[in-house]
């Protein structure tokens, strides 16, 4: 039971941890000052959410958030590959569309978690919703506009969509022992969340020509396994950078 809870919490936390980390790569490098500032807030929020999720485990006597984040073997992470992807070529279309797919997913996931039978999770999800509300507002305001703007913007968004599509789908890979989690009332099935996610993003993406048929199983396959400890090819470099300072003096305080 505790193992299932740990899997669930780590999934939630690890997703936010690296999403925040990837967003933070843009701080000081954004397309315009005002957006640089806004996106930096989103990066901080996600990182803070990760810390709050880990804290649920810490409160049960398990390691601290810093230990969860900075001291784990790659195969013990449960993050989706989507959040491990680099900011390819510093293309803001990729950054925005990933943020769009991810925060639509968060909206749907958090809403479900507010009804979780596991009370600490339900309470936390309720608190996090106010920040996620902003993330979703930010994401859809940008994508709606860019999608209707110039040919170049649309071209970039299409390319970003093609790159991110199977990874976005893989967000809904069922968790290990998901049936037991569903039974316990902790979370609805991933399939349900995926349907809600479609209902949320299709009306936005379709009118601006960014909708697409589902990825084929061969497109999807490399993105799967994340919830079972399989990392993307990008993880090692990501985590080496993430832990460069903390690992230099492992037992030190910073």
């Amino acid at each position, binding site marked *: 039971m505790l193992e299932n809870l740990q899997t669930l919490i780590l999934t939630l936390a690890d997703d936010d941890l690296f999403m925040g980390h990837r967003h933070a*790569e843009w701080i000081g*490098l954004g397309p*315009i*000052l*005002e*957006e640089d*500032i*806004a996106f*930096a*807030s989103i990066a901080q929020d996600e990182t803070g959410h990760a810390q709050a999720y880990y804290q649920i485990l810490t409160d049960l006597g398990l390691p601290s958030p810093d230990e969860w984040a900075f001291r784990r073997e790659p195969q013990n992470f449960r993050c989706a590959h989507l959040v491990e992807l*680099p*900011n390819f*070529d*510093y293309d803001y279309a990729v950054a925005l569309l990933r943020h769009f797919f991810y925060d639509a997913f968060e909206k749907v996931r958090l809403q479900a978690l507010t009804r979780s039978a596991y009370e600490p999770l339900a309470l936390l999800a309720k608190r996090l919703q106010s920040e996620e509300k*902003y993330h979703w*507002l*930010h994401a859809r*305001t*940008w994508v709606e*506009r860019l999608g209707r703007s110039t040919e170049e913007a649309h071209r970039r968004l299409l390319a970003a969509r093609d790159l991110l599509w199977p990874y976005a789908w893989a967000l809904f890979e069922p968790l290990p022992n998901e049936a037991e989690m569903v039974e316990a009332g902790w979370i609805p099935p991933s399939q349900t969340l995926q349907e809600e996610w479609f209902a949320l993003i299709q009306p936005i993406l379709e009118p601006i020509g960014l909708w697409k048929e589902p990825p084929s199983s061969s497109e999807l396959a490399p993105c799967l396994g994340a919830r079972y400890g399989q990392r993307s090819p990008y993880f090692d470099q990501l985590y080496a*950078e993430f832990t460069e300072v903390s690992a230099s003096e492992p037992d030190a305080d910073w």
Partner: protein
Amino acid sequence: MSSLDPRIQRAEPRLSQITEVQLEPLDHWPIYEVFVQRTRGGHAQHVGSLHAPDPDLALVLAKEQYARRSQCVALWVVPTEAILWTSAEDEDLFQPATDKSYREPQGYLNTRERLEKYRDRLKPIS
């Protein structure tokens, strides 16, 4: 370029290929003025301006630049272009030329005195 910042390293080779940048007018979008209402019951107050392409994004972006730390219950944005203002030369328009204490509480400090005098006159001479 071998930067100490891995983020900058990852922006190569494109980063070093950009040698000259010239921004045209309005490249950074038009300007909006921002008002924040800090508490329920308070006035919305001007706090600054920002560059945005349209009102919705102006609101979205203003939220973080002007309300990420400060207490805020509501946020307004207005295109600067829509605002009219009085000129500095006309600051004297706000100076009253004559005594207008008739419309201020301190214009009525002597009322009590009149009443006292009247009551004194009415007192029987003993």
